[in-house]
């Protein structure tokens, strides 16, 4: 009896703590994407940006061993890549879905080419400097939730803090208002003296920085090595989380936790659970995201009205 109880306990603890851990990177990417989408740009390119950020932070950490510098480098690479994307979206006015999607293929090519060039033919993955979980004293010893909530890496807490900051900026500052106006009714925003182009560039670059850092988060706090498949759709899931979270950073946090819980359930059940095909559980996060954004639960009304519509100033 005691044995099964301990099993159940251990199951819940690992499930909770890996839920939070897995939610971190996608939440960070989703927070940035919220800015882009609120300004009227659907940045599908964050998938590729995450991959480039992951590679950048891996290489930086491998060569310098400084984790914060690596994270910053990932953010810079993300911004740099998204200058090009923003130019395509806003100035060239190419289809946002097409430009973002093709950019993802480009990023895959660049990441693979650069990684092979940098690592040569050494097949063994190299170990790098990483972020480690910090255990907040006293409260991390709370039963059940203690290790899960207060035993995460510093990046997780920073991401939570960023969610609150993002919410404040979007809904409580004049910059946030101008950004949202550009995504809601760009012509009206322009008449009110807001530079729609500048707002959209800013939104896209913020999403680029966040996606680059999210890639760094994956490498520096979770995986510790680089491979082509490291992102595998997490950028797309971040897009889903933005919709699921109704373009609101705080709701996106909740959405990311739901997603993380599904993803973690699969890991925990593989360790503890009965013989469930792992693919069924692996499909769970994707199915949940599909259901969440299918429109079954509404949500069309709060979408920024000029999302995916390029602005032409007459």
């Amino acid at each position, binding site marked *: 009896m005691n044995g099964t109880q301990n099993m159940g306990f251990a199951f819940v603890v690992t499930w909770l703590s890996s839920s939070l851990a897995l939610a971190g990177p996608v939440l960070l990417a989703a927070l940035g994407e919220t800015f882009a989408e609120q300004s009227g740009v659907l940045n599908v390119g964050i998938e590729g940006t995450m991959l480039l950020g992951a590679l950048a932070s891996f290489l930086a950490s491998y060569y310098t061993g400084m984790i914060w510098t690596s994270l910053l480098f990932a953010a810079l690479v993300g911004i740099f890549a998204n200058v090009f994307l923003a130019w*395509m979206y806003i100035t060239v006015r190419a*289809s946002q*879905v097409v430009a973002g*999607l093709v950019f993802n*293929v*480009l990023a895959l090519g*660049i990441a693979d080419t650069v990684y092979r060039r940098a690592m040569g033919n050494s097949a063994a993955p190299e170990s790098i400097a990483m972020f480690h979980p910090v255990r907040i004293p006293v409260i991390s010893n709370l039963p059940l939730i203690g290790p899960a909530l207060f035993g995460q890496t510093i990046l997780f807490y920073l991401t939570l803090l960023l969610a609150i900051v993002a919410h404040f900026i979007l809904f409580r500052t004049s910059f946030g208002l101008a950004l949202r106006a550009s995504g809601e009714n760009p012509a009206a925003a322009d008449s009110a003296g807001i530079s729609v182009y500048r707002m959209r560039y800013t939104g896209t670059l913020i999403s680029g920085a966040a996606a680059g850092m999210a890639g760094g988060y994956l490498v520096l706090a979770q995986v510790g090595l680089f491979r082509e498949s490291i992102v595998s759709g997490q950028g797309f899931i971040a897009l889903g989380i933005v919709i699921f979270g109704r373009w609101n950073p705080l709701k996106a946090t909740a959405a990311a936790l739901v997603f993380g819980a599904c993803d973690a359930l699969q890991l925990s059940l593989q360790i503890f659970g009965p013989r469930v095909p792992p693919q069924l559980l692996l499909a769970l996060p994707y199915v949940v995201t599909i259901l969440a954004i299918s429109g*079954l639960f509404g949500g069309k009304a709060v979408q920024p009205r000029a999302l995916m519509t390029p602005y032409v100033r007459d």
Partner: protein
Amino acid sequence: MAKLFERRLTPADSPLAIFATTITAFLVAMLVTAFLFLYYGANPFLAYFALCHEPFATLRGFGYSLVRASPLALIALGTIMSWRSGFSYLGFEGCFVIGATGAGWLALLTAPGGRIGPVPLSLFMPLAMLFAFTVGGIWAGLVGVVRARLGGNEVLISLMSNYVAILILQYLVSGPMRAPGSLPETPLLPRTSWLPFILPGTRAHAGILIALAAAGLVWMMLQKMPLGYELIVTGFNPSAARYAGINVRSRLVLAAFFAGGLGGLAGMVEVLGSQHRLMDGISGGVGFVGIVVALLARLNPLAVIPTAILYGGMSVGADAMQRRASIPSSITFILQSLAVLLVLAFDALRYYRINLPYLRRTPPSVNEQVYK
């Protein structure tokens, strides 16, 4: 006020202008990639020669190019079908996998010990095509229903559905359909279910003929038939279409069904023509490269076949390059996607005209002074 570059009110849309910007974009992409070759210590001219020699100057390589081109062309045709109808479907990776799974399953049923037993090719092939088309069509059609009935965002839903399809196949080949052995894959499909080879001495199979026929059909449907007209109007302006009495919702679902069906056919062609068994990771990004092919062909069904052969050939050449010169084949990803991005970006150039008289006027030429 005269400038060398004058802005036009509407873009120059003559075939020459479009052709010129496309070629310029390609050349710039090749130039950028040339620097990458230099970075790898390879002579760019030799690298490009190697990239083109194997696929287009050797019979064996050309056969492989056709093998790679067939699924790409079918997916590109699916892209054209859906995008021109205003349905931004991105789930071809999933349709490909579902179609391949359906065709592979059907083929295994006709194996000597299978539930149906051997079936002549002339009966099996139409059945397999119909089946792969239908399952792929239903897979994409469901997304169409979600979009038409619930207003969900088809871009993201279709992206997510790719992963679900890939996991379904992974489950099947590592569980119920797995052949005894170490790798997660099915047994070899019976020879009677293979697509016939069409060029002696090569691996080229009848899939390219299916792609050719499909290109013709898609072109005819979109350009010459009332249904195609309705689909395109739906894509251009849904409100106008509704006003003209077109049932926009059903047209959307229909477009999704056709697009997914073509994606499913692509999967069938790959598994019955080239792989001859189902395995995990059979798609490997072909669903996205197919979209890129459609974009480069400017959503024109007739331009799809040469573009697909070019892209298929490039990947064959890249593999040869990786084997011989150890330049990673992923460089072609860069070349291919950069070409499309630059084609999109250079479209902006068509908004400008070069004002040649401006050049002639400064400084005033001797002739002008004489005639004055």
